[in-house]
């Protein structure tokens, strides 16, 4: 508990502080000192009776004393810990000078220009880093393909399991759901026209050419792209990547290549699974709402859907896999220091991967159209 005893003598005031002056009483101390409006020239603060004086309390007393001094009073301390005074002397109150008007006018024009320049510079750096990363990864890939002892088969299997096999349930579920949606929506419309049999063609073509591979890629970008970025990013902050470099191993060879190869294997397989599940689900829904039997459904597919429809979808999968793996690893490598940076780059990995997958898909559509594929 804090206790303050005032004693007035002529032109001086003696303040006897007693008790425990601690952090918990900060508000009380501040109010108690501020309430003193001494009309004297000399103030003596005596602390010999204080049983405990912590830094916060001492600072509040010191600050009040400074204010009294500014009012032209003389303040003396008795038994104020000398070390505290050293610490406090290093801290002088900040004086913030507002920028002058002329400078403000200049910065009004300079700021957008400067901001634009910085943005462009940053963009250039990002592109430079991305292209360098891409080249370095390809180099590491060729190196490991040419000298198989550098190729890390175990790591590839591990990542095939993590990105592929453990993704089977969710990818299957999503394929199933999207196929149900298309069959219901499309089938209902086509039945009004008396052309419900065309539902089979519609579902098969849209799933095999586009939706199967695209949804799988988006799912994998969300699952594995982010995982790659976070794994490598954390290794980067822990200096594990530096440790690899110092040991003379190429982090690209150990971290990037296995993930890249694994995803190139896993994504086409997942796409095939998604296609199968989607067609099965469509067959089931067609038999219940459109009276198209399983035999009819698959006969129709056999007759009308060529192998190249399936191939047109599947061929895109490895390209999507490369984009997802490289963007994930690249963003992971860009993580620096803070946990905030880790979060930012993990998010960026997913967003960039999905964006690039869609861009690539658009390009493929144009290409296939031109080729008549």
């Amino acid at each position, binding site marked *: 508990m804090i206790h303050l005893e005032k004693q007035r003598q002529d032109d001086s005031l003696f303040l006897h502080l007693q008790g425990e002056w*601690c*952090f918990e009483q*900060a*508000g009380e101390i*501040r109010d108690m000192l501020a309430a003193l409006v001494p009309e004297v020239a000399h103030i003596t603060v005596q602390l010999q009776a204080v049983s*405990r*004086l*912590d*830094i*916060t*309390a001492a*600072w*509040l007393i010191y*600050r009040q004393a400074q204010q009294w001094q500014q009012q032209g009073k003389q303040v003396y301390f008795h038994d104020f*810990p000398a*070390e*505290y005074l*050293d*610490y*406090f002397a*290093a*801290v002088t*109150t*900040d004086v913030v000078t507002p920028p002058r008007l002329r400078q403000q006018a200049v910065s009004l024009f300079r700021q957008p220009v400067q901001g634009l320049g910085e943005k462009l510079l940053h963009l250039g750096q990002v592109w430079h880093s991305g292209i360098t990363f891409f080249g370095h990864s390809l180099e590491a890939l060729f190196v490991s393909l040419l000298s198989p002892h550098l190729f890390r088969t175990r790591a590839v299997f591990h990542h095939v399991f993590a990105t592929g096999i453990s993704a089977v349930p969710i990818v299957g579920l999503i394929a199933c759901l999207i196929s149900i949606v298309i069959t219901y929506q499309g089938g209902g419309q086509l039945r009004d026209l008396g052309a419900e049999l065309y539902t089979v063609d519609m579902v098969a073509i849209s799933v095999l050419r586009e939706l199967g591979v695209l949804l799988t890629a988006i799912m994998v970008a969300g699952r594995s792209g982010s995982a790659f970025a976070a794994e490598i990013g954390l290794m980067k902050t822990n200096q594990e990547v530096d440790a690899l470099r110092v040991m003379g191993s190429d982090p690209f060879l150990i971290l990037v290549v296995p993930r890249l190869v694994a995803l190139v294997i896993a994504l086409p397989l997942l796409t095939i699974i998604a296609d199968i599940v989607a067609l099965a689900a469509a067959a089931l829904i067609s038999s219940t709402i459109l009276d198209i039997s399983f035999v009819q459904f698959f006969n129709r597919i056999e007759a009308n859907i060529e192998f190249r429809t399936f191939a047109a979808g599947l061929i895109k999968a490895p390209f999507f896999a490369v984009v997802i793996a490289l963007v994930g690893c690249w963003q992971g490598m860009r993580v*620096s*220091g*803070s*946990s*905030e940076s880790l979060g930012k780059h993990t998010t960026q990995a997913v967003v960039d991967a999905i964006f690039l997958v869609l861009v690539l898909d658009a390009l493929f559509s144009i290409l296939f159209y031109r080729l008549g594929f």
Partner: protein
Amino acid sequence: MGTLISIRNLTNQFGTQRVHDGLNLDIMQGEVLGIVGGSGSGKSVLLRTILGLNRPHSGEIHFGGQELMSMPDKDFACLKRRWGVMFQKGALFSSLTVADNIRFPLREFSSLTETEARELMYVRLAMVGLERDVARKYPAQLSGGMVKRVSLARALVLDPVVLFLDEPTSGLDPVSAEEFDQLIATLHRNLGLTVVMVTHDLDSLFSTCDRIAMLVDKQVIAGSLRELLANPHPVIQQYFGGGRAQVLLREH
């Protein structure tokens, strides 16, 4: 001087591995206690258990007469505000600047104004011997020694009654380590602070600690340096019998 923290029959077990077996330790008010022991002897687990980060298999820990294990979480959290903890790797919040790291406890748990909080933050920076311009930096931009200092500044900002330090001088250069020891001694003298430190640094052990608690055979043997040296236990003799310890002992 009374007992501040008393640990009774503490047992910690991970799987089949028993780390502490019926450990007893008393930490006195106002002392500097050094916890030592070989690697893997359970120093950090002991510290984590006292801090409530690790639930012990069995045993009791009393702080100022209150039993911590059966205390409601809310009261325990309130109590822990009187404790300052400095983690081995600093554990600074990496998304906050140094200034915000130090001010964080003040903002959360005090009624101080923004100006007061800022000035008190600068006082803590001065105390741990850092320049003002460090305040604007992020933890990732600091050197290892600076991280330790900022971490100590954060631990001190609520004016704790007990200060727990996990290897405070590891990774510091000898000059900084000695300054650090002196800083702890100054704080201890002025604030009547109780300091519990896990350390491997024999220098700070001999110069700063009043008492040493050594983890031996899953238990603690505590006493002054002289008492420990007189103890015939082979592990203790081995610990203080090494070349480096002998040189330092001759100096002290």
